[in-house]
């Protein structure tokens, strides 16, 4: 194995050089020579994503003929104000689904490798920690649900919100030294996974592409708008929270 190490390093170097070339080419326009940032960004597909409509027909324009996005107006492709959310859960949802599968594989691997065994005597948490943790847990849960439910308006969404909810459960494990409801985590996780996949398949059936938005979008910027993104983010949040909690429950053992 040792002999192949220089070869592997060389292969990694070649991959990095290829990546640099691709990054450089994406930022330059072939017709205008090789100067950085000379590409016409308005011609790129990601610029259309910023304007909320990939097709030219649904785009609105102001009096100067420039495309613009108006808060409160209906009929945008997926009524999310947060452009990161719009890309992550609609235009590039397949990538996000892959990320979720990676997290699922990690969770499954941890529960496979972590054999149950008798726990040694751990030092018990102090009275202050035991009293404070339920109160802090409540705040963490509320913050997590807020981050998930406002994913289409403000920064945040399913992944950070799910992680915050999982951190509330980790605090509980830390203070009380026991893992509760291990089975409930697994059931919630599978239900959320089934829900996500069925959202994708319904989009494929109704709109013709996987994870396409098929629900009404509502006025841009309202709390209850972009129904499809809200449902997808709620499912992602439940799945991530259950997975991270079950990973930490496996670590803490029986």
């Amino acid at each position, binding site marked *: 194995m040792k002999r192949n190490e220089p070869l592997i390093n060389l292969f990694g170097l070649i991959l990095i050089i290829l990546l640099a070339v691709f990054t450089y080419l994406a930022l330059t326009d072939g017709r205008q020579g090789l100067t950085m940032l000379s590409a016409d960004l308005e011609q790129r597909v990601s610029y259309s994503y910023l304007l909320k409509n990939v097709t030219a027909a649904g785009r609105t324009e102001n009096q100067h003929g420039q495309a613009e996005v108006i808060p409160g107006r209906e009929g945008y492709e997926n009524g999310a104000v947060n452009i990161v959310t719009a890309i992550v859960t609609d235009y590039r949802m397949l990538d996000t689904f892959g990320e979720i599968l990676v997290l699922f594989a990690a969770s499954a691997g941890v529960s496979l490798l972590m054999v149950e065994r008798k726990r040694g005597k751990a030092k018990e948490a102090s009275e202050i920690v035991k009293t404070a943790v339920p109160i802090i847990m409540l705040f963490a849960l509320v913050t997590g649900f807020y981050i998930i439910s406002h994913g289409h308006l403000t920064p945040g969404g399913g992944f*950070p919100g799910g*992680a915050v909810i999982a951190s509330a459960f980790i605090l509980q494990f830390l203070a009380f030294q026991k893992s509760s409801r291990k089975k409930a985590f697994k059931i919630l996780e599978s239900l959320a996974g089934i829900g996500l996949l069925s959202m994708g398949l319904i989009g494929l059936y109704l709109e013709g592409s996987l994870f396409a938005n098929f629900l009404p979008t509502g006025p841009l910027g309202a709390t209850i708008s972009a129904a499809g993104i809200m449902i997808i983010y709620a499912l992602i949040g439940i799945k991530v929270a259950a997975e991270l909690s079950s990973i930490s429950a496996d*670590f803490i053992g029986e």
Partner: protein
Amino acid sequence: MEAAIIVLGLIMLAGAISVLFQKSLKNAIITFGIVSLISALMFTLMKAYDVAITEASIGALLTIALFFWALRRLEEDGYDEKK
């Protein structure tokens, strides 16, 4: 702003290198947590709030908790830090 980002980046670099040379595993884990907290601050300075929230909750809390639980399992199996 750029000066702050450069200074914080240098602190992160120093912390990440010092993790490798820590004598005790506990100190290494705590230094690692501080590095990820500073990186969350850097994401906030660079206006990437989505990533900052994730980094603060996963990098600074979850990973550290998992490392400490793994360390406890090691100690149950007879690993001694002082050796």
